[in-house]
């Protein structure tokens, strides 16, 4: 299981980074959400893997998965959602302005 999770994290990270290195905003954004999946899983995995041990207090429970990383990952998911929303809209705005959705820009145009 660990191998699967670790490799999945790796592949998602790689795919995310590769997309971030593309020239247009949309792939960059998709890459970012890919990256956030990867890191959320990583964060979650920092509590190690457990099957059938949901951290719901219960006398019958044999043991619990580490709840803290889950809570942290939860926070991370929400935050990255907010971030994604913002960058999507900024990219949209930039495109609507200039009719150009390239991420690279010419520094000399600054006022």
């Amino acid at each position, binding site marked *: 299981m660990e191998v699967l999770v670790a490799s999945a994290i790796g592949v998602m990270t790689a795919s995310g980074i590769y997309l*971030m290195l593309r020239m247009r*905003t949309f792939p*960059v954004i998709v890459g*970012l959400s890919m*990256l*956030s999946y*990867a*890191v*959320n899983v*990583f*964060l979650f*995995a*920092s509590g*190690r893997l457990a099957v059938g041990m949901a951290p719901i207090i219960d006398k019958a429970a044999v043991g619990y998965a580490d709840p*803290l*990383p889950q809570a*942290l990952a939860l*926070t*991370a998911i929400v*935050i*990255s959602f*907010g*971030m994604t929303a*913002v*960058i999507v809209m*900024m*990219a949209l*705005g*930039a495109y609507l*302005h*200039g009719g150009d959705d390239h*991420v690279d*820009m010419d*520094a*000399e*145009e*600054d*006022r």
Partner: protein
Amino acid sequence: MNHWIIAPIVLPAMVAPLIVLAMRHDLMLQRVFGLASSVAMVVLSGALLWSASFGPPQVYFLGDWPAPFGIVLVLDRLAALMVALTSVLALVVQLYAIGTGWDARGKHFHALFLFQVMGLNGAFLTGDAFNLFVFFEVLLIASYGLMIHGGGGQRLRAGVQYVAFNLIGSTLFLFALATVYAVTGTLNMADLAVRVAELPPGDAALLRVAGVLMLMVFAIKGALVPLQFWLPGTYANAPGPVAALFAVMTKVGAYAVIRVYALAFPTDTPATGTLFADLLLPAALVTIAVGSVGVLGAATLARQAAFAGIASMGVLFAAVAAFEPQATSAALYYLIHSTLAGAVLFLVVDLVTDRRGNGALRGPTMPFAQSGLLAALFLGAAVALAGTPPLSGFIGKLLVLDALRADLTLVWSVILGGSFLMILGFARAGSHVFWKSQATVPDDQAPEAQRPEPLAFAAVFALMAGLVVLTVLGGPVSAWLDTTAQGLHDRDAYIGAVMARAGEG
């Protein structure tokens, strides 16, 4: 327990939503409430600074959970200093934004501004690593909003770059935090310090990775080469007052490095040793070079100011990298100075660019209103940032040079050489913008109607006055900072205060 400790976070966090809820259609009300809370913050942070100056660090146990299980805020001298610096800068910048009408060029300026301040204060006060991440995100997302305030194609595109680059930083932060937790089982900084010291050798490698990844996160914030690329475009395209406020954002990176690494990874830690210093110093020196070369090579005033900011971060990190009290004290003095100086330069540049229509440093140049006064102010800001007498920049530079004797020849030549390039750059820029323009028409006839904007100029003068005060009171200030630095490096007081209730676990 002293509830005032959390006020710098809660106050803006309550006023901002109130503005959104009740007065989002009335700019005047927004200004009044925004200013009121900024003033309150200055008073408050002053009081906190005072109380922090005497006695040990004060701890605030959120939710009344004992550390390290809940989140704690810690008010020590450093945190109090940063909060006070932020509050003062925020008030001044807000005055400027109102005085120039920047805050009217888009929606929600004041709410975002307050949230930004809240994020900064949270980052300075928290004693919990993950909570630090959360506040980083708060201040970042607020800064995204402020950076694109006023809109415009170029600004939005620069904004996209800013966000994208910092999202990588946020992601990296999470990787680092997860690894820290996986290895040490804690998120509380003080607890982390205790555990790192006793870490079994077998875990050293992973902890080192975690530490370095986190260092890179802070390096992105602090615009340390090779992670500085986001800064020039962002600052050059951000609204003037926002760029001025951002002068303290880069300092968050430096603060975090001082806080986390002086506390949890002192250079005598078996697992990490001088790893972080070894990475920081070279990067800092290159940063100075890149920044000062940029000051000479920049195409516009705003970019020049941005590069000056980068160079100053280089000097700051060079001092931080020594990780010993004298250098840290010097770093803190330079931190205060470069925050004020960077802010004032951005405000002056904004005033000039606004009157001149552009900030180009090449090609034709025309005279503009109030160029005499603005020239004087530009000179002052340039003198401060280049670190030439008589302003605090020189004292800061002396303190840093005096503290860095390790590789004296290299470090000194880089720092002094950097100042030289900056002097050249500012002299060229100044004579192009303020002198050459006079060649076209005689001085007496002002090209356009005067626009006094008293509030804006008052803000600029206030920052200048701050620099003067920092210079004149250099003695007491650096004495205070010496004690602060001592406290940061012998960590027992901090750890003891935070872990006082650990037994309850």
